[in-house]
Each structure stands twice: as structure tokens, then as C-alpha cells.
């Protein structure tokens, strides 16, 4: 009897529940028909503001876009949580995915604890809330989706495609960097190199748009062509299909997705209120199977479609956003308190942003400028030939300050190195060089083709000193490189070979100040005994003295008069080096 009554009661409850569900679904469909769903869910505007805020904060070094240089201060040793290329002129910190690949590259000698810790920290605190709220690439994708074109809705196909990002993670982020790092000793960030659209857009386009980086164009070959096409395809896909990159390709989203179920901040469902209508999942544009799963970016867009007011964004027990209207709305005092806290948070955030903008664009550059030795002063301090050209040097410390010189040299460099373009000039100067080797050198001090490079002195790795003016009457090649730069490492053996073939040519390879201490270990087993190697440092400022860009490798060739015949940031082949030597001789 009892069992029969229970069953009857259960059936009754089930029926009530099913009726409730039907009513909610119907009301959802009705709302949809009435166009209610065409309205953005509440919180969309706030989210957009937060996304813009994050993009601006990550790229607070706005002056980088104007001068074409990236920020290289101490903050670059930490990462921002979202996707933001560290080679973007505006970036103030590292990119988590690029840094992870770099760490895995180095895993043969340094365990990648730091990056694993950083990603675990971001993941456990924010999970994929990062994707929905503070990822600049997410913002760009959402803006592209605003383009008025037909939209491809999610389906079983897109859900299958969403697993592609795990393949990306395993192959491009883990396997390729680890394999190349351990077996080949070459830093190869697979995802950055072959796929990353943020690198192409923020890094390549961000740098190339500046006239100061005109010679960086010479580096562009197949890799750029391929990445440019990939970026365009991804951009186009985002217009038609919501967050295509984020959903199908982004390895960072794949990593943060692992933490989604238990991260501190995220979207949550009040299971007591939820009646299982499924409107949230049907409303969501991501490939979620349920709210808060590994695909959910905690955007909160589904909150508006839940008639039960069951969805909220939580930070632990604190509700950051919840239902504000309807019968399930939070009590008015709670909403007011939340709004008040929100205003305080915005106040703090704006103060932080203003400070960052002031710091990166005015305060720190002014401090750096005060500390760094001026190129002309250093040149005057060391040079023996300076007496002839120091007046000019004072007036013209670097060619970049003289647009007309720059314009001339960029014209010269358009398709060929200047020496090749003007063979008669070279012949004349080499003749002169034979007669009056060092003392005949007169001209503008600068870093453009035809200029005299400022003289400098530096210690060499393994003992000894290098003074540029000592080599007047000889062809000198300066190679600017870094151990973190794969093209540099592939190119260096050619310099060694060149030195063996041309003992009369002086070759100095100068390592970038970043990671200079590790260069010694790197070089230990290479057996490049003929090359002179020097390490730059903040105090020496050799790179800035030579007017070098932040992009490597860079090669500067000086003829016997000490004049620059070639100065380009591009990896060279051995044949090209031979050609440059014969032109400068």
C-alpha cells in the first residue's frame, strides 16, 4: 500500500515538475518569439568594459606603438592571464602561452615550474572566466562576430571541432617545443611560430606599422605569408562563427578549461532553483553541455535566459552578478550593496590603469633615459677618430632623428643592400681605405647605411677587449643575437665558418642583455672558437648605442673605412655573408 502511495506521489511530483519545465520552456520560446532574446543579457555592457579595460591594461605601453620598440622592463618576467603577444609594442608583460612554450623549450636544463605554477594559479582562481572577461583576443573575436553576416550556430559539428584545441595543445604547445628544445637545442615555440593569430596581429603588424621597423620587412618570407593567411582565415571565421579561435583552436582555453569545475571565480547554478529546462545551454553560443563545464567562459550571457534566476557569477561564496529582476531577483539591499562594491572596484581599477599608463609612457622612460649613456657621449669617450666627426656626432647622434637620412637609406635598402646598389661608391671608398685606413674616416655618426658607427669598447667572453676603432682598415661584422632566438642560433655557425674562411674579417657577436648570463653555458659546447663574443647589459647599452632594434638577428657590416655598408634585421645564409664581405672589402 505504502509503496503504491509513494509511487503515486512520485508520479505526481514528476508531473508537476514536467509541467513546470514545459511552462518555462514555453515561456522561453514565447520570449524568444517576442524578440526578448534578441536583447543582450544584462551584464554584457559591463563585460565589454572589462574586456576593453584588460586589453588597455595589458598594452599600457602605448608609446611602443609610436616609437616601434617593445617594453623590456622587469614586468616582462610575469605573464598576464589572457592571450596577449609579448612582442606587441604595447605589451607590458609576457604572454602565458608563449612563455609556457619557451619554458618547455628549456625543459632540458630548467624545469618549467614557474610557468606551470603561473598557469595553475590563474586557472584555479579564474578558470575560463579569463577567456570571457579579460582576454583581448576574445574581445577581438566578439567584435568581429558583430559584423552583419549570417551566423553559423553551434551544433554537433562545432562541438566535435571544439576538441581540436586539445590537439593544438598537445602537438604545438607541448610536443614541438619539448622535442626541439631537448633534441635539437633550438627554441621553437610551435604554436606561436605556425599558428598564433595574436602574434601576427599584435606582434608583426603592430611592429611593422611603424616606420622605425622598416627593415624588419626584409625578414618576411614564407612563415609570414603563411601566418598572414591563417590570421585572415581565423578573422573571417570569427565573423561567421562565434569565437571560432577560442572554441576550436585556443590551447590556453584548453588549459584553463581543466580548472573550470573548481575554480574560485566562475558561473554557477543554484540547483535548488534550476528545473532542468536547458534554456541556458540552448542560449549559450559556446559548445557547452552544461553551465560551467570546460567550454564555459563564464560570460554570464545565459543569466538573462534563465527564468528561474538560477544562474549567477560567483567568487567563492560572494555573488558578483546574479538575477536583478523578476521573481527570483536578489533582494534590493543585496543588489545595492553589490553595485556599491562594483563602483569601488571600478574606482580602484581606473586608478591602476592611470598609474600604469603614466608609469610605462612617462615615468619609466624618463628614468631609463637618465640612466642610459648617450650614444654620442660614449662614442666620444672611446673614439680616436672622433675628433674628426664628433661635431657632426653631437649634431646628429642617430640617423633615426633625421628623417631625410632615414628616407634615403630606406630607399637604398629597398631591394638590395646599399653596397650592392652603389658599387661605384664602394670601390671609391675601398680605394681610399687602402691609402688611409682609419684616420680617413669622416662622416655622420649613426646606424644607417653610409654612416660611421659610434666607437665602443667592450669585454669579450673568455677574456680580452674589443674596441671598434682598432679595426679600422678591416671589414667588421657585428651580429646581434640571443639564445632565445632560433634564427640567431641557426645563423651563428655561418659566422664561425666565415671567420675561418676570412681571418682578416673581424666578427663580433653581441648577445642581447636579456639572458646574457646564460649565453656562456649555451656557448660552452659549441666549439665556436674563432668568433669574438660579447654580452650586452643594461649598463653597457650596446644595443641602443648601435641603434639596434629589439628584433633579432641583426647584422651590421662595416667597410674598411668604418662605414656601414649593411644593417638589416634578417637571418642570413652563408652565401649572403660571403657576398656582404666581398662588397665591403
Amino acid at each position, binding site marked *: 500500500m505504502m509503496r503504491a502511495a509513494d509511487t503515486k506521489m512520485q508520479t505526481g511530483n514528476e508531473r508537476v515538475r514536467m509541467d513546470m519545465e514545459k511552462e518555462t520552456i514555453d515561456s522561453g520560446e514565447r520570449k524568444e518569439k517576442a524578440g526578448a532574446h534578441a536583447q543582450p543579457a544584462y551584464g554584457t555592457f559591463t563585460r565589454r568594459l572589462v574586456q576593453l579595460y584588460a586589453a588597455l591594461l595589458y598594452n599600457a605601453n602605448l608609446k611602443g606603438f609610436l616609437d616601434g620598440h617593445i617594453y623590456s622592463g622587469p614586468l616582462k618576467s610575469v605573464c598576464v592571464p589572457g592571450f596577449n603577444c*609579448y*612582442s606587441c609594442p604595447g605589451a607590458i608583460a609576457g604572454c602565458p602561452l608563449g612563455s609556457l612554450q619557451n619554458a618547455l623549450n628549456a625543459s632540458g636544463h630548467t*624545469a618549467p615550474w614557474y610557468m606551470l*605554477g603561473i598557469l595553475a594559479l590563474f586557472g*584555479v582562481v579564474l578558470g575560463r572566466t579569463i577567456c570571457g572577461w579579460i582576454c583581448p583576443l576574445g574581445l577581438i573575436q566578439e567584435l568581429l562576430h558583430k559584423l552583419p553576416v*549570417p551566423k553559423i550556430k553551434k551544433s554537433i559539428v562545432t562541438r566535435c571541432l571544439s576538441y581540436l584545441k586539445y590537439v593544438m595543445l598537445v602537438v604545438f604547445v607541448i610536443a614541438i617545443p619539448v622535442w626541439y628544445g631537448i633534441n635539437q637545442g633550438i627554441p621553437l615555440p610551435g604554436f606561436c611560430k605556425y599558428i598564433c593569430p595574436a602574434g601576427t596581429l599584435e606582434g608583426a603588424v603592430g611592429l611593422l606599422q611603424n616606420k622605425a621597423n622598416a627593415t624588419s620587412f626584409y625578414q618576411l618570407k614564407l612563415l609570414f*605569408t603563411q601566418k598572414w593567411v591563417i590570421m585572415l582565415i581565423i578573422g573571417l571565421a570569427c565573423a561567421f562563427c562565434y569565437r571560432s579561435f577560442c572554441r576550436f583552436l585556443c590551447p590556453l582555453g584548453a588549459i584553463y578549461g581543466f580548472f573550470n569545475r573548481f575554480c574560485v571565480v566562475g558561473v554557477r547554478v543554484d540547483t535548488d532553483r534550476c528545473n532542468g529546462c*536547458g534554456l541556458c545551454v540552448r542560449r549559450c553560443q559556446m559548445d557547452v553541455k552544461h553551465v560551467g563545464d570546460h567550454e564555459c567562459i563564464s560570460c554570464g550571457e545565459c543569466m538573462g535566459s534563465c527564468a528561474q534566476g538560477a544562474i549567477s557569477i560567483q567568487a567563492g561564496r560572494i555573488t558578483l552578478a546574479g538575477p536583478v529582476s523578476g521573481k527570483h531577483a536578489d533582494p534590493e539591499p543585496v543588489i545595492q550593496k553589490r553595485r556599491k562594491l562594483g563602483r569601488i572596484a571600478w574606482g580602484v581599477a581606473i586608478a591602476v590603469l592611470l598609474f600604469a599608463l603614466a608609469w610605462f609612457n612617462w615615468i619609466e622612460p624618463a628614468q631609463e633615459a637618465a640612466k642610459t649613456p648617450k650614444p654620442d657621449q660614449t662614442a666620444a669617450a672611446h673614439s680616436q677618430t672622433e675628433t674628426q666627426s664628433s661635431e657632426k656626432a653631437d649634431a646628429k647622434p642617430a640617423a633615426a632623428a633625421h628623417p631625410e637620412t632615414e628616407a634615403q637609406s630606406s630607399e637604398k635598402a629597398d631591394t638590395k643592400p646599399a653596397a650592392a646598389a652603389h658599387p661605384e661608391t664602394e670601390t671609391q671608398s675601398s680605394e681610399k681605405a687602402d691609402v688611409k685606413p682609419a684616420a680617413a674616416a669622416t662622416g655622420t655618426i649613426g646606424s644607417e647605411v653610409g654612416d660611421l658607427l659610434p666607437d665602443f669598447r667592450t669585454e669579450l667572453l673568455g677574456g680580452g677587449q674589443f674596441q671598434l676603432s682598432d679595426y679600422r682598415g678591416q671589414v667588421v661584422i657585428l651580429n646581434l643575437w640571443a639564445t*632565445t632566438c632560433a634564427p640567431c642560433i641557426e645563423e651563428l655557425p655561418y659566422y664561425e665558418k666565415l671567420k675561418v674562411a676570412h681571418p682578416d674579417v673581424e666578427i663580433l657577436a653581441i648577445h642581447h642583455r*636579456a639572458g646574457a648570463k646564460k649565453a656562456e653555458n649555451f656557448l660552452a659546447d659549441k666549439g665556436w672558437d674563432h668568433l669574438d663574443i660579447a654580452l650586452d647589459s643594461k649598463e653597457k647599452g650596446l644595443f641602443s648605442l648601435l641603434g639596434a632594434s629589439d628584433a633579432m638577428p641583426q647584422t651590421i657590416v662595416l667597410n674598411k673605412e668604418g662605414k656601414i655598408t649593411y644593417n638589416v634585421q634578417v637571418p642570413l645564409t652563408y652565401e649572403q655573408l660571403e657576398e656582404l664581405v666581398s662588397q665591403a672589402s
Partner: protein
Amino acid sequence: MMKPKKLYLIIESALLALTAGLLAAAAVRMYVHGAAQIASGDLFYYIYTREKVGAALLHLLPLICATAVFTVAGWVLGIRDESAGKLVAMDGIDAKESVKKAVPKKTGRRERILQSTILILAIVLILLGIWNGGMGDVFDKGAAICTECVGLG
């Protein structure tokens, strides 16, 4: 007779696809031409230069402007794919199961333990990374342009 809105969406899609396609084609053409030049023995031929890229963009400028104007017009007139805001089918997802698996508002004990453990582990790993030079590696990579990362070299 096709509805004007639908027609607009089709034209806008075609314009966008054409712009992206021609931008991609311009780069591919430049590369193919440059690669042939290099293969013919011109050691210092630069495939891309600021001037060449500028000229290619100038060629495409009318199309880029037309697409931009057409897009803005669409926004101003409020034209969009109306079906975009509609609910999609559950497509093989069981609503009941979905509710059971949804991340609940009240954090369970297991989740709290997991959170704290990972948080502590993360901090330990970061400290270890600072100690073993991993943090320095991140700086080294970020302080100079990674030409490969950005597709330059």
C-alpha cells in the same frame, strides 16, 4: 523575391570574404614572385618591403573602404542575422543530465580541498621557478622580440 535583409547579409559576406581573400592573395603573390627572384640567384632580394606592401594595400583600398562603408551602413540600419539570438536545439545533450552536471552554486568540500591544494601547489611551483631561473627565462623571451613567434623570421 529575396528579402532585402537577406540580400544585404549575402553581399556583406561576399565583400568580407573577397577582402580577406584578396589580402591573402596579395601576400601569396608577393611571396611567390620573391621566391622565384631569390631562386634565380638574387641573393639579396627582399620579398616584402614597406613600399611593396603599401602599394598592394593601396590597390585594395577601394574594396576595403567599400566593405567598411557597407558594414557601417548595416549597423546603422540595424541589419543582422536575426536567427543569431535564437535558442539552438539541444542536439544530443540531455537537459536533465546537463542540470545534474552543472557546477553548483554551493562549493562542495571536495572542490574546496582541490582549490586550496592547487593554490598552494601553484605558489610552491612559482617559488621553485623563481629559484631555478624559470622566471628569468620568461623575462629573456619577453624582453626581446621573438621574430619567429610573430611570424617575422
